[in-house]
């Protein structure tokens, strides 16, 4: 039996019996670009190549990085983005609607079996839908936009096999931080990682997206999850087209996958990763008595509807501690509206949260809210490299939205189970 990665690449390249290491040219079903690495960078290359985009229906453009604009430079970037979209007659343009990796599936663009590229390193998020999706730089993206195809070296598959149920207040983010510690940031060596097992099958789509999203942190090219009824229900609700053969992609394991790492979800506690790497993770209780300045719930990784819900679960009827600030940047406008309808935004506000735009914001170190000199942050984002979220001397701890919210309540890094009654 072949792996899911090989199945997807075979379909995209029209070549059967791929071996690991084989270089093939794949036809691209969808190319996603954003304001930072997109039009402003691909436009000059396309002009040099004297080529128009190969298929305007297969391109999705999202503005999320330089949002809101803060100066003339970023204003010019957004103006260029809008003009390029117009000139190239691209209908799939989502302006300030949220972070690309969330907007893409929520508008029904992702479905099992697709072969997709994104101009952003967290593009493996698409793997949660049983699509092969990976991140590429602007030059490669220009090549894709000009030709509709891309070279790829058939990757090995590493299987992350998760058994049993997660305990309460333990999330996909905690699973991921535990995987980062276990296999390291280079552990993926650009393979395809596949998440499988009972724990994964029981996760809702937005939690699966957190896993696939941070496959990037494991050094993988793609972070795949075989589609099942949960996937199909999400895609249908989002207005996507489910392929009739979607069951062909239900490949969870393969005999040839020699590289299997097993995990027991029932033994997992909430995790925190210390500065400056996601692999510096440990049980949250090991970090008690650690003070911080800013609690941040944001990013494609940690501010989706389900993440806001988790934070509200902790913050309901509570106030954040004196001396700390809590900033929340919901990952998409739709998720924010849904959270508002369900009273979640009110709970967060009553607890003392400040709200930021539905964009990358501090996660990318952009905007006036970025971390100041020496500030310490506990964050639901994916990366805590030195200086990433602001000043070089700032530092970031990574955790789940539960843990970020619980820490905001006590003013110290806190295992969320300590502030919950049940």
């Amino acid at each position, binding site marked *: 039996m072949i792996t899911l990665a090989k199945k997807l690449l075979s379909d995209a390249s029209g070549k059967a019996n791929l071996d690991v290491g084989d270089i093939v040219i794949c036809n691209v079903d969808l190319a996603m670009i954003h304001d930072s690495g997109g039009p402003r960078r691909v436009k000059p290359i396309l002009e040099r190549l004297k080529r128009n985009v190969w298929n305007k229906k297969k391109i999705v453009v999202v503005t999320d990085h330089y949002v809101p604009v803060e100066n003339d430079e970023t204003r010019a970037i957004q103006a260029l983005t809008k003009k390029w979209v117009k000139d190239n007659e691209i209908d799939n343009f989502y302006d300030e609607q949220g972070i690309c990796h969330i907007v893409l599936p929520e508008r029904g663009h992702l479905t099992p079996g697709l072969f997709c590229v994104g101009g952003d390193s967290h593009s493996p998020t698409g793997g949660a839908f049983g699509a092969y999706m990976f991140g590429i*730089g602007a030059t490669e993206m220009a090549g894709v936009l000009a030709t509709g195809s891309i070279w790829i070296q058939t990757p090995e598959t590493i299987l992350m096999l998760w058994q049993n149920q997660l305990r309460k207040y333990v999330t996909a983010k905690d699973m991921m931080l535990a995987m980062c510690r276990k296999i390291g*940031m*280079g552990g993926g*060596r650009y393979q395809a990682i596949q998440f499988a097992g009972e724990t994964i099958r029981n996760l809702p789509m937005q939690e699966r997206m957190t896993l696939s999203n941070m496959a990037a942190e494991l050094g993988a090219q793609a972070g795949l999850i075989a589609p099942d009824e949960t996937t199909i229900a999400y895609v249908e609700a989002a207005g996507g087209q489910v392929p009739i053969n979607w069951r062909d992609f239900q490949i969870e394991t393969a005999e040839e996958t020699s590289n299997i790492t097993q995990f027991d979800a029932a033994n997992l506690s909430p995790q925190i990763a210390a500065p400056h790497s996601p692999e510096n993770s440990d049980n949250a209780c090991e970090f008690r008595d650690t003070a911080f300045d800013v609690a941040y719930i944001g990013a494609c990784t940690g501010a989706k509807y389900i993440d806001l819900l988790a934070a509200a679960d902790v913050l309901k009827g509570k106030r954040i501690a004196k001396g700390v600030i809590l900033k929340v940047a919901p990952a998409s406008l739709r998720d924010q509206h849904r959270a508002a309808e369900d009273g979640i935004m009110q709970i967060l506000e009553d607890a003392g949260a400040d709200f930021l735009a539905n964009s990358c914001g501090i996660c990318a170190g952009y905007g006036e809210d970025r971390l100041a000199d020496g500030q310490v942050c506990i964050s639901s984002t994916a990366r805590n490299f030195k200086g990433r979220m602001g000043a070089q001397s700032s530092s970031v701890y990574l955790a789940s939205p539960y843990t970020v919210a619980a820490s905001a309540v006590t003013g110290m890094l806190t295992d969320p189970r300590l502030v919950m009654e049940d």
Partner: protein
Amino acid sequence: MPRLWRLEGTIDTDVLAPGFYMKSPLPELADHCLEAVCPDFARTVRKGDVLLSDANMGVGSSREQAAEVLKYLGISAVIAPSFAGIFYRNAINLGLPVFTIDESFMRTPSLANGARVKFNFDAPELLILDNATCIKLIPIPDFLKELILDGGLVPHLEKRFLQEGSHS
């Protein structure tokens, strides 16, 4: 004579192309390349110099400027026991030679910072002139070699389009 820059530890894309200068034009961004780990780098690097880094070189974001600044500064090859995938692809697509080295060679004493070296793309190998050592690098598939020799993906596509055009 080209020299070797031996970088220690994890070199991520923020170290190569700091986020704060990403809005700036390439020459300005290049001035800050590696400044967090090697403040003199951008000022003293010379054309043809070779970069040797520890494992997982270029980990981090998809920004291709991380590879582009190195090419701009004249680096002739980046060598490491392993590369982060996106950085590796970006480098090749920009025509910057990237080669993997067997981990065991990393302990070779003469592979020291400042060593006088000569990089041979075709072999591929790295000659250390100080003591006439030759270190074999891991060969890459012909397709990737061709991309690099063409000068990267854009010139490669230009060549292809020209050929296609002349057929039609």
